[in-house]
Every structure is written in C-alpha cells, then in structure tokens.
C-alpha cells in the first residue's frame, strides 16, 4: 500500500480559500479603530502562545486580497501606524510570477 491511509484536514476546507480573503491584524483596538474610523468594525481575538501566555489581537473586517491592502483604509493613515517598522522588503517579485504565483516548476 503506497497511498495515505487516511487524510485529515483541520484548516483547509471547502470555502475558506475562496476569493483569497484577508483581514488586517493590529496590536491594539486603537490602531484598528484609527484605520477604520469605527471601533465596531474591529474584533478582538485571543491567540494562545507558549506557557499559557496569549496575545490579544485585533482584526479589521475581511476584504478581498489585494497587494495594496484594504481599499477602505486611507493610505496615509495606514502609514502612520507603521513608524518603526518597515514593510515590503520582500514580495517585489510576486506579481511577476505566472498567475501571480511564486511557485517554481
């Protein structure tokens, strides 16, 4: 027998990947609210890390993936919370791959 005996998937399901949705992640309510101008658009989730510690993480609403980010956010506002952290140092070639893919072969 050379096929897998059983296959279990816990994350990949029928609808999760449709449309490449994503949402922005924030370190605080304030950061999220600043981007969206409305705290009710933000949600809080706890993410467990090692030793019983957890991070509180804040998310904006889901939107269709875009290399320019969530179109509902004013770009100048988004830049403001990124002081001290630079982004975009990788990913430049992404749009040059076939189908936008970075896969080889």
């Amino acid at each position, binding site marked *: 027998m050379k096929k897998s005996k059983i296959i279990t998937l816990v994350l990949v399901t029928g609808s999760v990947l449709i449309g490449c949705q994503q949402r922005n*992640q924030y370190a605080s309510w304030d950061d999220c609210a600043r981007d969206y101008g409305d705290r009710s658009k933000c949600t809080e989730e706890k993410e467990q890390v090692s030793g019983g510690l957890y991070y509180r993480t804040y998310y904006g609403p889901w939107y269709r993936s875009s290399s320019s980010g969530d179109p509902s956010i004013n770009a100048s506002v988004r830049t403001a919370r990124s002081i001290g952290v630079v*982004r975009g140092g990788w990913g430049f070639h*992404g749009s040059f*791959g076939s189908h936008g893919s970075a896969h080889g072969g």
Partner: protein
Amino acid sequence: MKRSPVPHVRENWQAKLEEVGFHFYEMDGKTYWDESAFYELTSDEVDQLEAVTEELYGMCLELVSRVVREELYERLAIPPRFWRYVKKSWERKEPAIYGRFDLWYDGRTHPKLLEFNADTPTALFEASIVQYYWLQDYAPKEDQFNSIHEKLLDVLETSIRPVVGRDVLYFSCVKESLEDLTTTEYLRDLAIQAGIETNHVYIDDVGWDLAARQFVDLGNRPINYMFKLYPWEWIITESFADQLLTSALSLFEPAWKMILSNKAILPLLWEMYPNHRNLLPSFFEPPNTEKTYVEKPFFSREGQNVRTGTWFMKRGKRAIYQEYRELPDFAGNYPVIGSWMIGDHAAGIGIREDRTPITNNLSRFMPHLFRSIETNGQEGRT
C-alpha cells in the same frame, strides 16, 4: 505505464474538488485539473520511480556537500555575502520539508531527471489531496503512489517541531495567488496537526522592526521561524536580504536549498556522476553539436525562457544546456512525472501533461493509480 481515458468524469466533479479546498481547477480559462483520463502504472514501475527518486536525492545531498566543501557557490551564482549563510545552514543540518523531481519516464526505460524543484515546488495539494480523493471515488480498491500527506505530517512532527519548539511557525506566500495560498494553508494545516503553533503572514506584509532589529508580523510580533513559499533567489536579492543576514529568522526551506533550487545542479551532477542512467548530459557551455539541447536559465519558473536548439550563443553566465529528450507521447499528450521527496523519503507522484513537449504552467494535472498486489486482477473501479 499507460494513459486511460475514462467514459465519464465524476458527477459534480467541480463541487467535489471544492469540498476538499481545491478551487483552481481551471486557470486562465483552461482546464488544469483533468480527470477525463488517468495514468495507470504497474507496481514495478512505482517501485522503480520510488528508488530512482531517493537515489537522485542522495546524489543531490552529495552535491550540496561538495559545493559547501569546495566553495563552488560562484558556479551557482550565489552572491558571496550569502556563502557563509548557506554553509552554516548546511552544517547545522537544518531540516528540509519537501522537493519535487521532474522526471522523463515512459515506463519502458530508465527515468531521466529533467530538473529538481527543491525550493518552491508546485502542485503539492493536487498530488497529495485532490488525486487521493479522486481515487477514493473512482477506484477505491486500487492503490496510488501517494503517501505525501502522512509523510508531510511526519516530517513536521519529527523534524520541524523540535526546531520551532514552542515558538510560532509563520507561513508566508505572495498575495493574490490562490494557488500559493492553498499550498501554504495546506502546509499550515499539517503543522497544526503536528502540534506546532502557527500563524499566517503574506510575504509582502513581513516587517522589519528598526529598533528591535527583528522581523515582525502585522501585529509587530517577532517572526523567528517562517515557511516561505517564495524563492530563495528572490529572498536574497530583495530589500530585506541584508536584514536576513543579521536576524535570528530561520526560514523553511532552509538556506542550503539555495544550492539545489538552481538549474546549475544539472551540469554539476553530470560532472559528479557522468553517464548516470538517470541523468541527461548537461553542461555549462553550449555543446553546439548536431544534437538538440535545451537551454535553461539557472532560475527559471514553469518553463519560462527555455529554448531548444542545436546551436546557442551563450547568454551571459546563467544558463545551462541539457540534452533534449522528447517527452513520451501518449496519444498526443506529453506527461512529466513530478516525484515528491518529503523529508528524506520518496513519497508519491503527480503527473502533469501537455499537448506540447515542453511542460509549462498551463499543463494539466492528471490523476494516476496502480494496481496493488492485493487487488491485482480484481475490478476495483466504481
């Protein structure tokens, strides 16, 4: 090995694919997943492919060892500032997860290595999951050379989890590629099952904290371990390359895979193993004889910039020349065997075919099966 058209495909096949999380069965308006036919192999053929794949991988590891020992990085166009980085990765035995050998194979003679996709191989989900469920529907009593899923789980449990420990393993890919997101999320799924703490970050969203001098996610949390579905040759030539050299970030696939994700390994393997039955003659210089050769850039994706001919004017230093071998013709279809290495083991195959002899990114993925000894002679199809 034979190609068998089927009388009819599964009812609601698109819905069945979507149920398992596979949505790119058409690309650019053309069929990508094609179950109107399948390839049938014999048990001996599968054994042969399995043995050849592991032998080739062993040869590749010998090659890496030689490159590091003799500092042959220049022959692979690896920038000098990354030589030590690659060497340390190899000496630390950083674990690899996967790779895919593309093999010429007709079922009658020895498989031949066309190339090794050692860093960001395509078609993992199709090979591991989609064709598995096709077999469950179409011929559940038959076997398939495909234990990719359970071998991935094993590698993540036994090789990756001990490295990551209680830290978070990030999974990263480019935005706006459903194909890449599917692969990345599939691997993250397996990592979760392997007991690894995970998170997702798009490669474009990875940040560099100027004060802490570390890579961070969108919540500015440190990224110490990251699987990146993004080629090494891009990682080391884009803006964050310098930061990578000074940070604590560990990437998967490991940095020593930089050596193998490069067509220059083909002439180097030919140097080390001349006339090996599973290699095609390959050279750094154009042979310019009466024989037909294929010119392949060191870094070429999905058949891009590949040229075939008998006479070449060498284009800079970054191309190799591999003897042309016409792909086997199965009623006007030209298959390439994608043979998967997961960790240190051959784990299965995926077959892509085209209507031209050079496989490209629009090749169709075809499922396969073989008759296992237990069911040999019995009708297993439903």
